[in-house]
């Protein structure tokens, strides 16, 4: 069914059609519309699931962990401070290998308080052991959410679907909402190989000493790397069913002969596509959106950047003291590659600062630099003020 929905309502409908049995969440902007939407669908009799309004994100993550471990498909959504408050449980969920789907309505992290979009929240938990998929538009958000329920079940790894707060969650755009029948064909009933059951007693998350802990962590790393197969398979199967892919590991746009590429995460991919089309028609440019940030698809990235002389990484998060997080990982993935492009790091759009079409020409100027640009905050309005209290 093709119709115009607010991004959050589209996600809510997609989630409900995946037949979750337990949804727990705590209010936080800009995520709240998603759970409100789910609560309304339940109240309207369109969904059969229990929506629990819990006392914090910490509780939300714990409730869905319990529900999923006890044999229910479970779902939660949060953003920003909520992701950080959940962090302890997010590690726990991944460590226990419990299937869960979480929508992260990406938002900046305090202080100062800021409710608008950037990717700092998802980046803060990038090493929690979750699969992290970034969406570029609301169709992508719907398709990725549905695929996430399948991926998490196939891999027994939790999946975080990252959707740009406000930019996507509050945007009305026409989307194709897959039917219940399509989703039922794609998504088998919930199963979890270690469901808690008194008739088959077992324990999850128990104390493990130095003699086993390393193996468990190494297994998580190995399984997360191997989950690329399931992520690609889910997208391919989805394409067979609805005739539309959600982007696999990396979305690509632009001619093969391009010498300059721009790699980004999330909805700014659409901005770059429009900028290239409107402002620089005919200029060969390769635009890329990393859909799958965890596991980090190093092999796919190496293939995607073939032939490029310069790769500009544009990201909405910063690792203070280190630089761009994505750029750092890209450099690591390309290290040792023959004829690797020069990697330039650009940070923009922090705390909801608009990334206009004009960003493209400023990004391309980075490629003219004599030396690769390690990290530049490209949309500063003014030079940052001196250290609080002055130089010491």
């Amino acid at each position, binding site marked *: 069914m093709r119709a115009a929905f607010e991004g959050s309502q589209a996600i809510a409908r997609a989630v409900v059609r995946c037949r979750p049995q337990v949804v727990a969440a705590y209010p*936080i902007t800009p995520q709240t519309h998603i759970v409100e939407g789910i*609560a309304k669908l339940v109240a309207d009799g369109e969904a059969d699931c229990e929506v629990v*309004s819990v*006392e*914090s994100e910490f509780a939300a993550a714990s409730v869905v962990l319990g529900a999923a471990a006890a044999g229910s498909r479970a779902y939660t959504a949060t953003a920003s401070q909520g992701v950080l408050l959940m962090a302890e449980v997010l590690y726990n969920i991944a460590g226990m290998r419990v299937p869960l789907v979480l929508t992260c309505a990406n938002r900046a992290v305090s202080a100062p308080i800021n409710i608008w979009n950037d990717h700092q929240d998802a980046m803060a938990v990038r090493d929690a052991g979750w699969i992290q998929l970034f969406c570029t538009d609301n169709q992508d958000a719907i398709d990725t959410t549905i695929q996430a329920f399948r991926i998490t079940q196939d891999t027994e790894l939790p999946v975080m679907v990252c959707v740009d707060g406000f930019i996507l969650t509050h945007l009305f755009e026409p989307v194709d909402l897959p039917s219940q029948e399509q989703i039922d064909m794609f998504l088998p009933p919930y199963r979890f190989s270690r469901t808690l059951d008194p008739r088959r007693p077992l324990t999850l998350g128990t104390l493990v000493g130095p003699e086993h802990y390393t193996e468990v962590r190494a297994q998580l790393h190995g399984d997360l790397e191997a989950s690329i197969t399931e992520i690609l398979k889910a997208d391919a199967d989805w394409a067979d069913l609805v005739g539309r892919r959600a982007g696999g590991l990396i979305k690509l746009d632009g001619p093969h002969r391009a010498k300059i590429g721009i790699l980004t995460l999330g909805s700014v991919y659409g901005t770059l596509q429009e900028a290239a089309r409107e402002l620089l028609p005919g200029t060969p440019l390769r635009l890329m959106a990393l859909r799958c940030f965890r596991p980090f698809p190093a092999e796919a990235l190496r293939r995607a950047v073939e032939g490029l002389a310069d790769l500009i990484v544009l990201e909405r998060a910063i690792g203070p003291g280190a630089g761009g997080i994505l750029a750092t990982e890209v450099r690591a993935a390309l290290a040792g590659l023959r004829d690797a492009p020069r990697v330039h790091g650009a940070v923009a759009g922090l705390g909801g600062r608009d990334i206009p079409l004009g960003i493209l020409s400023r990004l391309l100027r980075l490629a003219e630099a004599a030396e690769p640009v390690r990290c530049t905050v490209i949309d500063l309005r003014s030079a940052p003020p001196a250290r609080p209290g002055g130089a010491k």
Partner: protein
Amino acid sequence: MNEIALTSADRFDIRDWLRLEMFPHFLCPGCGHGLALRAFLWAVHELGIDRDALAVISGIGCAGRLSAYVDANTFHVTHGRPLAFATGLKLARPDLTVVVITGDGDGLAIGGNHLIHACRRNLDLTCLLLNNEVYGMTGGQVSPTTAAERYTTTTPAGNCEPGFDACKLAEGAGATFVGREATLQVPTLKNLIREAIAHKGFSFVEVISDCTEIFGRKNALGNSPEMVLRQKAGMRPDNWGNKVDRPFRPNPFPTGVFVRKTRPEYLELYEAMTAAARREERD
């Protein structure tokens, strides 16, 4: 008859206590939080507290915004943590009057843990919990004090959970001063807050406030005047003994002071303990 001459310095003018450059404020029309802020600042004024000796701490939510409007030492901390922050602040600066402004979500849900321990510890802090029965800032989700069956955006079929009685919680957790008042009567609220701040030890005041835009409208409770009158219909001043007088009137929220007792304050205890430890070491 002796007339007491009021000098301009004695007269309470709320503008003296506000950061007017922060205005217009962002509270909705009809919101009770402005009245609560007025009562609080009036109490501070009457107690003669210097603004430099006052620290106001708030978390996240509609109540959390109030600290930003007060012209004193103010801190806007993470969701649910103002009492924990205030504990650190008071330990470092016992000379300051430390007041926490929190809400039903900030103080009873995500920060509920800190509230019970602040009550138990009895550090000399004052906590004003502005209860509007809803998460107003995020658009009206069910909160721990939302009454059963009320409609919110996350309970579109009605709330199936019972609400919290914040004062009973504080009392049970050991707070040495517990009171409740509604924004209907600001002078009485001011007196209660004044007594709470003057109280030595942890003091807890629940302020019944109204969310007209997001909660009242959704539950057909009328506009601000109707909601305030509803407070009046429901309340029982403490000089009536807080007795339920059904069937004539429901008694959802008794008002007044429920707990007023003396228990050693945390810092005093701590200092006595360390002094004793030092004495033993010397002996």
